[in-house]
């Protein structure tokens, strides 16, 4: 870039300072718009990615025993029964459920090396002994003795020995990992019984074909959930609340229209100045370049700040209240997963969505004025 170009950018900045209030307001409006639009898109993207990650970690099929009264524990022979079905490669009884903690309901799970490997892949954790617990970051305990009292079928107090790492927060946020003996006591499970049965299949895409045969392998009624069922469940849950998020776009689009109208009106109000510049030897190209530079000087930092704010809202500590506002999360919000390959197009999209009409408004009004005779502009401007 030549020194002359730098000088022209400096001059554009100087011109902006002649109306600091108006230009600050414009920057604030653009930044706010960027935040509103990006937050919605980023949150939707984050939830989709997060759900996909969660499901990829989960089993292909989950078998639950059901009775007229609802959920029932699954017996010790269930594993062997499931493995008799061709195509089932892995069967893992799981002990888990929800119990009450002082701050509200939490999920408990019995710890084994397999569970730890799933929830803490990058960390070596010692499975908790009887009377010990590893807890997620969304669970609070207040006393100095680090004791957490849980209330299920019976009351169990455990000593918190460790917390899960932050990067596992997606999966472990409200999780309490216990010794199987403590977990069984809380859930009222007999020795050998489990909450459900997680199955792995040889061809995950054909898991649904195994369902009739699998259901017949058990001497009691079972409910079998596939990974696709889980995906639909999450999609429906997020979709209901996500609809509210879409409402953000209506005022955002209205604001964008008003912003563009404001720019055009401001430019038309500047006719006298454009006429003067032309009279002083500025070419139409010079004037358009000045106006575009001014627009970029206002728009680019504003959009950058808006995108950063949206990122902070979705992935930072403030995700708590944005999650509450848009998704109805009542408890502490988990850390969402960010993939640069997905977020970057959103940032580019929003930059384009905002900059295109912003620059078009500036360009159009500048070109219309630049084509007029200077004295006409001076007269009409006055």
């Amino acid at each position, binding site marked *: 870039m030549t*020194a*002359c170009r730098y*000088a*022209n950018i400096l001059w554009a900045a100087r011109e902006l300072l002649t109306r600091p209030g108006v230009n600050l307001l414009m920057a604030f409006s653009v930044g706010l718009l960027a935040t509103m639009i990006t937050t919605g898109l980023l949150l939707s993207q984050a939830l989709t990615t997060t759900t996909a990650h969660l499901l990829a970690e989960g089993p292909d099929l989950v078998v639950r025993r059901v009775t007229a009264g609802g959920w029932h524990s699954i017996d010790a022979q269930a594993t062997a029964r499931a493995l008799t079905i061709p195509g089932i490669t892995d069967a893992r009884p799981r002990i888990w459920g929800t119990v009450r903690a002082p701050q509200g309901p939490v999920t408990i799970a019995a710890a084994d090396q397999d569970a730890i490997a799933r929830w803490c892949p990058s960390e070596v954790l010692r499975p908790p002994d009887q009377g010990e617990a590893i807890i997620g970051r969304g669970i609070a305990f207040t006393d100095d003795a680090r004791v957490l009292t849980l209330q299920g079928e019976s009351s169990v107090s455990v000593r918190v020995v460790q917390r899960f790492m932050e990067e596992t927060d997606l999966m472990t946020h409200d999780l309490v990992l216990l010794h199987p003996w403590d977990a069984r006591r809380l859930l009222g499970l007999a020795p050998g019984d489990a909450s459900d049965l997680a199955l792995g299949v040889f061809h995950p895409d054909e898991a649904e074909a195994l369902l009739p045969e699998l259901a017949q392998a058990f001497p009691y009624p079972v409910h079998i959930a596939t990974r696709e069922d889980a995906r639909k469940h999450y999609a429906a849950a997020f979709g209901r609340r996500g609809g509210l998020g879409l409402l953000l776009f209506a005022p955002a689009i209205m604001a964008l229209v008003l912003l563009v109208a404001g720019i055009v009106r401001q430019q038309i109000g500047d006719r006298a100045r454009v006429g003067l510049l*032309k*009279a002083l030897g500025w070419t*139409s*190209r010079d004037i358009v370049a000045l106006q575009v530079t001014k627009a970029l000087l206002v728009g680019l930092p504003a959009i950058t700040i808006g995108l950063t704010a949206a990122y902070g809202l979705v992935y930072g500590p403030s995700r708590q209240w944005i999650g509450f506002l848009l998704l109805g999360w009542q408890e502490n919000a988990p850390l969402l997963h960010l993939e640069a390959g997905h977020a970057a197009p959103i940032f580019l999209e929003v930059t384009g969505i905002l900059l295109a009409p912003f620059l078009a408004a500036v360009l159009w009004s500048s070109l219309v004025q630049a*084509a007029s005779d200077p*004295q006409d502009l001076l007269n009409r401007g006055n």
Partner: protein
Amino acid sequence: MPAALECRRLAYRYPNADRTALNGFLLQEIDSIFPAGQVVLISGISGAGKSTLLHLLAGLRRPTRGEIRAAGQPVSRWVAAHRDRWRRRVGIIFQQDHLVSGLNVLENVILPLIPRSGGPGKWRSMGLDILNRLNAQQLAGQAITALSGGQRQRVAAARALVDAPDYIMADEPTAHQDTANARRIGRLLRQAADRGAVVVVAAHDRHVEEWIAVDQHLKLDNGTLQPVP
């Protein structure tokens, strides 16, 4: 050396003009040559069309009929983009100074330089130089709103002359000036003509010839230009 500016059968009528007198034409059938290296004074009563003629000569308006030629080229007929470039060679002092109130004096003076070559250092030096020659260097950092009418007119003159233009149109350049400052402006316009510029001054004040050494005096009356002996 810039070539002369020439009017050929130049006529101008405002789009919404009352057509009862002269069929609405403010200027009609003007054939005049404004030679390079000369100061031409155009006088006339208020409303005679002096400012309009200057605006036409400066390329700020297009004539209704006829044409304006510079160096033999019909600049008034050129498309906007070419006229824009040609206007870079023109410096104009408006009757109403048209200063930008959000900028200070020096920034107003250097406005014509911004899109051209150079940078802030060169612009500042050129701006201070012309302000100095107009005895207005002490005003450089002041806000436009703090200036008197005479000071504003000198700033407008500095802005018109800062880039040593080839064609200078000055509309009442010595209005609101005391004798010393009027002479300064007159001297600068004379110097511009002496280096070869075409200088056209419009004034209705008969004293202007005392302050500006004029080569040719024309009177605008009933839409036509007549030499004043």
